[in-house]
């Protein structure tokens, strides 16, 4: 009962949020100066041509009318047609989504591994110089955003000591046998590890740039949480039973210390996904974010709308997933 109620409320607020996002982006996009139609037509087109095209894209109606038409179409899965490429928005967006998802998930995995290791290490070595060093690294990692990390990585490992690729998703001359857009995933399934290596060579730096701030936040919060937990009575009790410190941290403290960190990772992961927009641009990585910036520059209204809605959907799904994981990991909720 309790769970059903909470779940229903969550779904309701998620819907309200999504509709809110749709309304705002719709209005913002309609007041963009610069006439997209004029940009599409060759010079010398008549006014009648412009009106005809406006009617075709529904731009001749009032904004509330346009919204209702658009919204009704969206409910049928029709997000409109891109003005620049004249292809359905949904197809374009879904074609780019896998690239962004692979990048985000790889970044998340890197952040969790790096942050988790630093947190455990810092707790094990608490009150030593090593912990102070980890604190300083965390402070820097958190204060500097993904955009700057990306640039720094480009200079360091793209130019001064070129070990990674600085642009694109995959080396263009390679033959790709893929049937889906999940290149990395598929290359592993097809055992084409040469391609996997090439993909990772391109992905590593953008993913690391996205991962560093999150890794620092995880390291700091998890370490703080661990340090509180290792002083709780049950951890002390475990030590008096004869368990060594490392196993007290890993077996007793970690499962409990993870919970407060987990809720934070939800919000922070959406920040990370949002960060792909500029990081993809920086590394010329062909994902959603790169497409979004082009769409804004080209005033491609239907495409902008589609991308923003997709991002919003992604963010709300991430939050939902985190809440469910939290409920699953927390025995208080699992056995309520």
């Amino acid at each position, binding site marked *: 009962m309790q769970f059903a109620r909470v779940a229903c409320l969550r779904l309701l*607020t998620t819907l*309200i*949020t*999504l509709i*809110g*996002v749709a309304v*705002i*982006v719709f209005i*913002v*996009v309609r*007041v*963009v*100066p*610069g006439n997209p139609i004029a940009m599409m037509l060759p010079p010398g087109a008549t006014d009648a041509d412009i009106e005809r095209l406006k009617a075709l894209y529904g731009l001749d109606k009032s904004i509330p009318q346009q919204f209702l038409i658009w919204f009704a179409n969206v409910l049928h899965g029709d997000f409109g047609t891109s003005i620049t490429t004249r292809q359905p928005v949904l197809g374009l967006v879904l074609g780019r989504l896998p690239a962004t998802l692979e990048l985000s998930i790889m970044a998340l995995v890197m952040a969790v591994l790096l942050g988790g290791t630093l947190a455990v290490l810092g707790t094990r070595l608490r*009150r030593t110089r090593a912990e*102070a060093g980890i604190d*300083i690294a965390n*402070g*820097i990692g*958190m*204060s*500097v*955003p993904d*955009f*700057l990390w990306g*640039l*720094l990585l*480009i*200079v360091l490992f*793209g*130019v*001064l000591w070129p070990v990674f690729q*600085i642009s694109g998703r995959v080396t263009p001359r390679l033959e790709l046998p893929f049937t889906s857009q999940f290149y990395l995933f598929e290359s592993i399934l097809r055992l084409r590890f040469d391609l996997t290596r090439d993909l990772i060579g391109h992905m590593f730096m953008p993913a690391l740039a996205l991962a560093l701030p999150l890794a620092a936040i995880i390291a700091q919060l998890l370490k703080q949480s661990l340090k509180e937990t290792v002083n709780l009575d049950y951890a002390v009790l475990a030590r008096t039973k004869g368990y060594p410190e490392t196993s007290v941290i890993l077996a007793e403290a970690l499962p409990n210390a993870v919970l407060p960190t987990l809720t934070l990772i939800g*919000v922070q992961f*959406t*920040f990370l*996904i*949002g*960060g*792909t*927009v*500029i990081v993809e*641009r*920086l590394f010329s990585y062909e994902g959603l*974010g790169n497409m*979004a*910036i082009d769409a*804004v*520059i080209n*005033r491609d209204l239907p495409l*902008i709308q589609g*991308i*923003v809605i997709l*991002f*919003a959907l992604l*963010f*709300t799904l991430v939050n939902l997933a985190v809440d469910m994981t939290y409920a699953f990991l927390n025995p208080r909720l699992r056995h309520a």
Partner: protein
Amino acid sequence: MLDGRGAVKRRAGARLWLSGLWLALVVLAAVFAPLVSPQDPLAQDLMLGRLPPFWMPDHEPGFWLGTDSLGRDVLTRMIYGARVALVVALSAGVATCLIGTALGLVAGFYRGWADRIIGRLVDIWMAFPPVLFAILLIAVLGTGLSSVVIAIVVIDWTRFCRVVRAETLNQSQMDYVHSARVAGFTRLRTLVAEILPNVLPVIVALLTLEMGIAVIVEAILSFVNLSVSTDAPTWGGMIAEGRTSIYQAWWVLAFPLAALFLTVLSFAQFGEGLRDRFDPVLR
């Protein structure tokens, strides 16, 4: 109490002074830009294109950190770029802080429908990818300094709002707030005289953090060519240009990047340092 208070204090002091020193340097450079710059920031000379910094062969005296592809002096443009960065940091930082803090205090202290509406708005805002939102807003507002500031405020008020709301809510449940009620304080007085001093350290730390973020957002917008005019010297614009010629002239990217890096880092550390230094509870 049992942990190394002394060591923590020393470290906090060091970061306050180091970050303060760098920020002071940036402020001085911005204020006295025409006096301290070796060259004219807009002067182009294709004959002097892509000169390397002073320690490398083929450098030209007077162009300490080299030149870009159009022969403009990197150091000069960095110094002038500090002006844009600081103006954006101060105006966007303060405006974001005022709006976000006010909404956060109201939501966290008065609760009820105000909290619900503000909370819903925050949720909607959080569902936008911030960089895309900023770019979209600039497309609407047109490029220029004031558009950049407005875009930052519109996007980032939620950061203050969320944190201040949570902290206010937290403080509202403390007994000293009940005690103020027992003493017959009005709600407003309780909020301003009792709760605000306890939320203030968080606000100060967030404010300097936000200033750093504002600098970054400006740089990002410059990077996608949507900030101030393309000719005007900004760190982001220089970085964008450096990115295109990175293999030929890495210094065009590297030096403004270093300035940006240090400035953003310093803003964040300065706030934390201030808090450690001046908060009576931590002190």
